[in-house]
């Protein structure tokens, strides 16, 4: 995955809550066996509504999605992350995220940023007032900045390091293969196999 240190771009305000991954990418799009082309499915049902925010030319090219609380709940489909990234988003900001979506995002280098609800609202209002507002998401400094505001966010050191280095999780784990093998020797004898 691509390393993420700091990203500056424009934002898209999404004033909805409880955005489940079925809305981010409906199930009909999950039949593909490749990893590409999911941007077409992003919010595909909502995009049929001409007033939906992604259809507003004012927000074209936005790379930071600023959403209401409980973004990415429901289904585990990582396709939701792929769709957001392939559409051009690098960051999603919300007050709360679904656990699996948040995990999937950090595996792919899409940064999920948790800000307090009032700060999310303030950012949404600022972007609505000026769609070309520059927003900086600084992972190194754990801060979101716009128009004189600087709001800190929390992220654990390990995930931050992995994102900033763009590291492959599997490669990291394979360094500990000996420990995995040692663990396997001590597994309980009755544990099932599928054969």
């Amino acid at each position, binding site marked *: 995955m691509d390393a993420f240190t700091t990203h500056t771009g424009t934002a898209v305000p999404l004033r909805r809550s409880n955005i489940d991954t079925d809305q981010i990418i409906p199930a009909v799009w999950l039949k593909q066996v490749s990893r590409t082309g999911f941007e077409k499915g992003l919010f595909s049902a909502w995009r049929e509504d001409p007033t939906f925010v992604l259809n507003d030319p004012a927000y074209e090219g936005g790379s930071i999605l600023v959403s209401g609380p*409980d973004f990415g709940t429901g289904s585990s489909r990582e396709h939701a992350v792929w769709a957001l990234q392939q559409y051009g988003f690098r960051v999603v900001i919300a007050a709360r995220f679904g*656990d699996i979506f948040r995990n999937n995002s950090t595996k792919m280098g899409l940064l999920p940023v948790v800000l307090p609800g009032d700060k999310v609202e303030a950012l949404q209002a600022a972007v609505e007032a000026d769609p070309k507002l520059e927003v900086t998401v600084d992972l190194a400094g754990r801060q979101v900045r716009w128009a004189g505001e600087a709001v800190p966010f929390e992220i654990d050191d390990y995930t931050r390091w992995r994102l900033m280095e763009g590291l492959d999780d599997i490669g990291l784990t394979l360094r500990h293969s000996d420990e*995995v093998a040692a663990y396997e020797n001590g597994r309980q*004898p009755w544990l099932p196999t599928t054969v």
Partner: protein
Amino acid sequence: MGRTLAEKVWERHVVRRAEGEPDLLYIDLHLIHEVTSPQAFDGLRLAGRKVRRPELTIATEDHNVPTVLGPISDPVSKTQVETLRKNAAEFGIRLHPMGDAGQGVVHIIGPQFGLTQPGMTIVCGDSHTSTHGAFGAIAFGIGTSEVEHVLATQTLPAYRPKTMAIEVSGELPTGVTAKDLILAIIAKIGTGGGQGYIVEYRGEAVRKLSMEGRMTVCNMSIEAGARAGMIAPDETTFAYLKGRPHAPEGEAWDQAVEYWKSLRTDDDAVFDKVVEIDASTLTPYVTWGTNPGQGLPLGDSVPSPETFSDPVARSAAERALEYMGLTAGTPLREIEVDTVFVGSCTNGRIEDLRSAAEILRGRTVKTRTLIVPGSMLVKLQAEQEGLHEVFKAAGAEWREAGCSMCLGMNPDTLKPGERSASTSNRNFEGRQGKGGRTHLVSPQVAAATAVTGRLTAPADL
């Protein structure tokens, strides 16, 4: 200080723990299906990696499969299923394909084979993996990157979630089911209430649930936002497991049971959060909105958005009523449905089919009614018990095993504007087909609704 059930199972599976890093957790069982695995296998091939423990991995075809006999007609679905077959063969993973006696919804087949056992760690690229927690396992859904990680290493790096106890006191009244209990819990704590937690369901009402009922409760833990749901194993669990194909036998069984009995939260253990609910006050529940937390007792009416003090909940309710085509104040019992669906990993087990059949016996359905067994073995058992004859005589459709109308990936869908009473787990916009409107209910309410064409409790008949 004592430990919770979740802490005991987690600690047993820590391969490596280092300061400032997530734990590296060993995975005892990895379940795979056609939708979330193809890109993971591609990743392995690209990196020249193998599956570390194919014999701890099992695959089935469920999301895309049609539930009428015959081949898959959608070429894209067909390619996805064929891709799983190729990948399973290439990497040496046991697969239960369409037509196989062991095929079925991934969360139905694990328990039915006895592969799901107390104290295990179980993952699958599917959020309803929480189902397996009913046996006292830590079981959770993962994304495709993590599927690839487990295939390659049989481990996952993860931070241990916090622990939450949901204490269910009292007894469920007659006619009130595990599904009503979990819908009531989600309505109480909200779709984000469980975020960051492993939930342990405890208390008298939970202990009295069958394994099927416990699986229904744990299945929808994700709908409360929880990472996983668990119930401590007991005699009900052991009786369910004994004699299943992959359950231990003889001396190994005795050893296993001895260990399994230690898998309970110590009396002096402390949960990070405790939620209490009184089962004896519950009645059949139904959802009225577009997230599973928007539920009410069936005796209530569609709520008015103004009654929500939180502005976010208010605007969500407004939007939900618009999407659902409902007017505030309408009694829920007056809502007419076009389709009834009984099935899914939430309610597609034999006990669910029996309870629906009991209500439909000697009655006739007024709506399109799909009865979809969760697995081919559930189907076989239901047919041995004659349940299929009851369904057919009532005018319901008796189908082959699969995920069916739980999600819009196979031919079983709602048309725009159509309304269902569904025993599945998600009432999201478009979940059962674009523009479809879903009311989540128990199998009993689903069957009674099929008879009247309106949301109905069995006691109303």
